[in-house]
């Protein structure tokens, strides 16, 4: 069976008797929970955010059920609070934390290397190189978790999560549910208890290091002894591709680091070379061991590694940046977000943005979204920018993102008496990560109906003075409403609600183009709709296959070159 790293990891956890899994969608981790949700034996959920997901999974483990948390690298930031203290409480049944990092920033806001978090949190770290290993490592992960009473971090990267390969699947084995034991010194982290647990952590790390030294996950492959590579994760496969005859110390259990094994390996080969993606993590673990080794030029700490880089790295050269950049993504034809940005641009508003498809509103030619930092900051950034500019500021946030971390920001605005306009771009799904449901859709991860969060009610409850719901395809009304609310002395939320085009099959007729009226002003192209292009002679072509008939382009044209009839 061809399985991706995400799917293989999910399959492995399922086979190991996983009972509870929780996550919030995020590329490249989303497919882990999507796969798990298909198994009836696993109680899986999209949580409202990663902190909640982490606590649901950890508490299930403490309660006696094998459990798993998964998120992308920046998702783990949201869960840092429970993560840091989970090393103190330890677990009940096995508990796996999956972080899927995104070297190269394919679909994220930063390039953090979460291996460093394992060290800060004092939690053991496993790094598979491939989908088949992801499946195997989950099994070992549960053993370590239960054997050492600790959470275990498994770190994937995009090239593992989204690579498919042949993976052998097996049957599920049910694992006996452990009894929950009341244990106040272990599970109530007040200072006195936490201090005692702190001592336990250090003792545990010593034992974990011994385990790491003996673990087959850290494997010496002796071959040609001229050069020996110390490497792990997907980098191992890149090096193996380019130097199949070399010797390797393949690191699969990277924290605590197997120091003695590294020393042993270094004595067997003539020259040691460390190759890893992003931060010098293995490199730092080797320092102070008396091993002479070479490593990549610091320029290679930025971005993904690629197989063809390896020979350059070994030769000690600096990274040459690729000249040709990939094509920019764009909002789909008929996307309901587009009209909101068109209006905001027209009235020259400064717009604080958030994370989702609508972040694409920042790209040229629209350029109508002006900040994007992290989940929830569309609202909280509005507060600061509004303080500074006083008028013509709007904050935008998606529906799923609003539920994730937007709500506290809205309460904060009301509580601190800030006036102004927040727009919830409600396409009734978590679109960018692949259309996952969330509380305001009223559907669970398993596709079942559940209690539906009513966004207008919660906005009122948070303290918004006005809550308007509008279909953003009704551009004239939308413009009038935004103009009315943006500088009003009130806290207003506009819920711009229209379903994501990817879920919508229905199309309206494309607009009619009257060439004779067209003065080639190209205002219609400023909305960046993929269905509109300039022809060779400078006129406009409407791709009727792509066009959904939203007619936003008609709104942009005052010359009646684009009309509805």
């Amino acid at each position: 069976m061809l399985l991706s790293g995400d799917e293989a990891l999910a399959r492995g956890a399922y086979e190991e008797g996983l009972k509870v899994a929780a996550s919030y969608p995020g590329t490249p981790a989303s497919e882990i929970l999507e796969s798990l949700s298909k198994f009836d034996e696993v109680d899986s959920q999209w949580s409202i955010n990663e902190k909640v997901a982490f606590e649901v999974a950890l508490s299930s483990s403490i309660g006696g059920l094998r459990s798993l948390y998964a998120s992308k690298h920046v998702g783990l930031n949201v869960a840092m609070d429970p993560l840091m203290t989970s090393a103190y409480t330890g677990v009940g049944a096995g508990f796996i934390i999956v972080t899927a990092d995104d070297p190269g920033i394919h679909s994220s806001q930063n390039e953090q290397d979460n291996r460093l978090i394992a060290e800060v949190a004092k939690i053991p770290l496993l790094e598979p190189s491939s989908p088949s290993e992801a499946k195997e490592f989950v099994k070992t992960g549960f053993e370590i978790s239960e054997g050492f009473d600790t959470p275990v971090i498994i770190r994937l990267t995009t090239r593992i999560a989204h690579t498919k390969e042949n993976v052998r699947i097996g049957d599920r084995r049910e694992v006996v549910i452990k009894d929950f034991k009341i244990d106040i010194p272990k599970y109530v982290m007040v200072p006195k208890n936490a201090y005692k647990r702190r001592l336990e952590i250090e003792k545990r790390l010593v034992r974990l290091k011994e385990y790491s030294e003996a673990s087959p996950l850290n494997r010496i492959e002796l071959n040609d002894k001229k050069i020996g590579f110390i490497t792990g994760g997907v980098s191992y496969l890149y090096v193996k591709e380019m130097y199949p005859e070399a010797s390797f110390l393949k690191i699969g259990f990277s924290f605590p680091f197997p120091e003695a094994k590294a020393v042993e390996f270094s004595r067997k080969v003539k020259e040691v070379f460390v190759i890893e993606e992003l931060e010098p993590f293995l490199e730092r673990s080797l320092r102070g061991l008396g091993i002479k080794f070479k490593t990549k030029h610091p320029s290679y700490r930025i971005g993904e590694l690629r197989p063809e880089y390896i020979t350059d790295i070994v030769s000690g050269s600096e990274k040459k940046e690729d000249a040709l950049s990939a094509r920019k993504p764009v909002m789909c034809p008929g996307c309901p977000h587009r009209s909101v940005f068109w209006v905001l641009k027209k009235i020259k508003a400064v717009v604080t943005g958030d994370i989702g498809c609508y972040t694409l509103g920042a790209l040229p030619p629209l350029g109508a979204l002006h900040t994007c930092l992290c989940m929830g900051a569309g609202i909280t950034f509005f507060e600061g920018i509004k303080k500074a500019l006083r008028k013509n500021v709007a904050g935008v946030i998606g529906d799923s993102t609003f539920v994730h971390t937007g709500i506290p920001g809205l309460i904060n605005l009301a509580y601190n008496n800030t006036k102004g306009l927040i727009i919830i771009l409600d396409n009734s799904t978590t679109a960018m990560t692949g259309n996952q449901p969330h509380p305001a859709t009223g559907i669970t991860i398993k596709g079942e109906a559940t209690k539906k969060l009513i966004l207008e009610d919660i906005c009122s409850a948070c303290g918004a003075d006005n809550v308007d719901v509008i279909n953003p395809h009704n551009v004239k009304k939308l413009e009038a409403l935004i103009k009315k609310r943006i500088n009003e002395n009130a806290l207003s939320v506009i819920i711009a609600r229209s379903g994501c085009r990817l879920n919508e099959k229905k199309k309206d007729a494309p607009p009619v183009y009257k060439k004779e009226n067209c003065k080639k002003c190209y205002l219609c192209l400023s909305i960046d709709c993929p269905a509109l292009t300039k022809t060779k002679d400078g006129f406009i072509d409407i791709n009727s296959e792509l066009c959904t008939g939203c007619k936003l382009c008609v709104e942009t044209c005052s010359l009646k070159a684009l009309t509805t009839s």
Partner: protein
Amino acid sequence: MNKKDTINILFCGIGGQGVLKASEICGLAALFDGFHVKKSEVHGMAQRGGSVESHLRFGKEVFSPLIPKGQAEYLVSFHKEEHERLKDFLNPESVDLISYLAEGEKLIKNKRCINIFLLGVLSQYLCIKEDSWMKAMKELLPLKYLEENKKVFAEGRKLGGWHDME
């Protein structure tokens, strides 16, 4: 340094063109024939009209999920600009299927099937059994469009292959 027994195919295009589907079918067909398969791509932006590239490698044992630059045996492009961007992956012996794109656009009425047409062309170059291609398509394409796709695949298969390289 590439092991000769690994076949490297690079599929490229933009979101929504069926790039990932094409490489998925090819990967599954290779799996049916008993090869070790690795297929690597990036999701997330794929449906938003951004660049999409899928690296497919199969052989006895495949290491890197990415094809090293200059080592693609085949480049299957669904978009001219993307083809331009990824030419670095080719070497003088590589087979570049770009000329078939225009041909497919002329021949195939349903634009959504161009990916399957190009697969048909590609299939003629590869050592994968016809039966495995059929099985893979059956598994991965909606039943409703299977027959249409099989016809398109056959059209491509007629055109592709070493015979027109002479």
